[in-house]
């Protein structure tokens, strides 16, 4: 029996646990947002307020909304996928009596989520981009725009959001979820403290974000990602924070993820049916 076959089995089991409509959620959100964008689209491709002719919904904002919506959708899917595994007594029994060690089971469950979610995210969103291109709106996006959803959906959200949430799902207890949220809050406090300690930190982040691309201003203090027309990639201040406050952010990410993954591991080891 090869590890690959074991992994394949868990992968298939995960697939069976998944309500199919979840996989269409990112596509639906994306389609909805794009449809909305197309409906309100101005002649130059930028939706505008009728009275003032002011652009209020640029493609970059649409893309930002799409990215966030997709991320949220995929997060829900991920949490649900794993939690179904560990909420259902029959499935728990099946998983926990399979002759694999706790360690193998844990790794395989995580891997199966990592494979499934980006896979469907990429497919659904590439299809949507294809439709956008077919109906002649591709000009709104740079030539390499199809890479953006792959990158944003398949990589970044997983690094920053999916891993802790999978761990949450594995934990499956209110107390530990609260504890996990506490870890997030602690991380936020650390970031805020560092920002306070070094006032230039946040400014440098925003300045850097402006330098990265055209910053679409929604209000005085809320910025969306930008989508350059030539070589720059759309990036939100949130991601820019990570690119600037590199060491702090990585530390935060590693500590948080590490703690949550450890919680998930101990939860799995102590999981009873």
């Amino acid at each position, binding site marked *: 029996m090869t590890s690959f076959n074991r992994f394949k089995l868990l992968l298939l089991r995960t697939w069976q646990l998944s309500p199919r409509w979840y996989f269409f959620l990112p596509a639906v959100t994306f389609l909805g947002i794009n449809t909305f964008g197309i409906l309100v689209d101005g002649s130059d491709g930028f939706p505008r307020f009728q009275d003032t002719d002011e652009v209020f919904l640029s493609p970059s904002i649409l893309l930002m909304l799409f990215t966030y919506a997709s991320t949220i959708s995929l997060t829900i899917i991920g949490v649900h996928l794993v939690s179904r595994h560990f909420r259902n007594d*029959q499935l728990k029994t099946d998983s926990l009596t399979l002759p694999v060690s706790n360690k193998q089971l844990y790794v395989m469950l995580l891997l199966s989520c990592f494979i499934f979610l980006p896979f469907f995210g990429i497919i659904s969103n590439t299809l949507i981009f294809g439709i956008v291109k077919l109906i002649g709106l591709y000009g709104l996006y740079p030539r390499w725009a199809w890479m953006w959803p792959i990158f944003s959906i398949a990589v970044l959200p997983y690094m920053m959001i999916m891993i802790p949430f999978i761990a949450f799902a594995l934990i499956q207890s209110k107390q530990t979820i609260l504890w996990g949220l506490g870890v997030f809050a602690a991380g936020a406090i650390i970031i805020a403290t560092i920002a306070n300690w070094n006032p230039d930190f946040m400014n440098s982040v925003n300045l850097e974000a402006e330098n990265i691309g055209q910053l679409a201003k929604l209000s005085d203090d809320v910025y969306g990602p930008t989508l350059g027309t030539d070589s720059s990639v759309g990036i939100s201040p949130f991601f820019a924070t990570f690119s600037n406050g590199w060491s702090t952010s990585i530390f935060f990410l590693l500590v948080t993820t590490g703690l949550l993954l450890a919680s998930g591991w101990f939860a799995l080891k102590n999981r009873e*049916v």
Partner: protein
Amino acid sequence: MMIININKLSVSYGRGEKVLDQLDLRLDSGSITALAAPNGEGKTTLLKAICGLRFPDSGNVNVLGFEPGKRQARFLEQLYFLPAEPNLPAWTPKRIGTYYGPFYPNFSDELFQKCLADFSVDPDKMIGKLSFGQQRRVQLAFALAVRTELLLLDEPTLGLDIAGKDQFRRSLIQATEDGQTVIIATHQLTEVEPVLDNLLVLHEKKIHSQLNIGQAYEQLSFTLSRQEPKPFDGSYGRRVPGGWLVVKNDYSSGNAHPDLETLYLALTEGKLKLQEPQTTL
């Protein structure tokens, strides 16, 4: 060889009342044992403690030389637990064998196919298109084909028709000829009695009785009587059509109607004491 050694096992759910309390159990290998208990008395909990799905609050559990709670792969591949309500993947039986079988070193695809054929199940039909009873047959066929040292079956005859139950008994005997140990948790003692060697009665959170059925029948008499036995005369009477089936600790009275369910009721109601209670089978 002792395959299960449990000392003073206590298990509770959350902070609730204990389901098992200071339970001791020793079981030797190579037998088919029924585990019977009133509803909610912890049959399934005991099976789960044996296979590592439930951890002891206190006490020691040793199964096949392993501590089940650690859920080591080497331990799990020697044991198969068939829950009362398992969830089969939406595959064909053949595919279930292909994917799940290799996890168990002694799995025999040939035996699996034979059991499926004996159970009259089409190996290429999707599980979702099979009836509940047929799905149960697939589960039983797989459980028998894994050929693990220890097989734990929770209500295995649930959903089986008469022919299915008969086939289950025959397949169980064939599949366990090479010395497997089988524990069958069931309320349907009559359905599995023909294949049983031993009876474990779980009552009041402990192993109340542990006996070899053949030896027990040599000690006891089962007779039909038109009159209800008098209380406190060391016998137990069960109302049956036409009178009472009376079980007594006196073999000389005859053993014309041995009945495991009557014996179980007599034991759990405290009306019968065996002469030499056995602690190890």
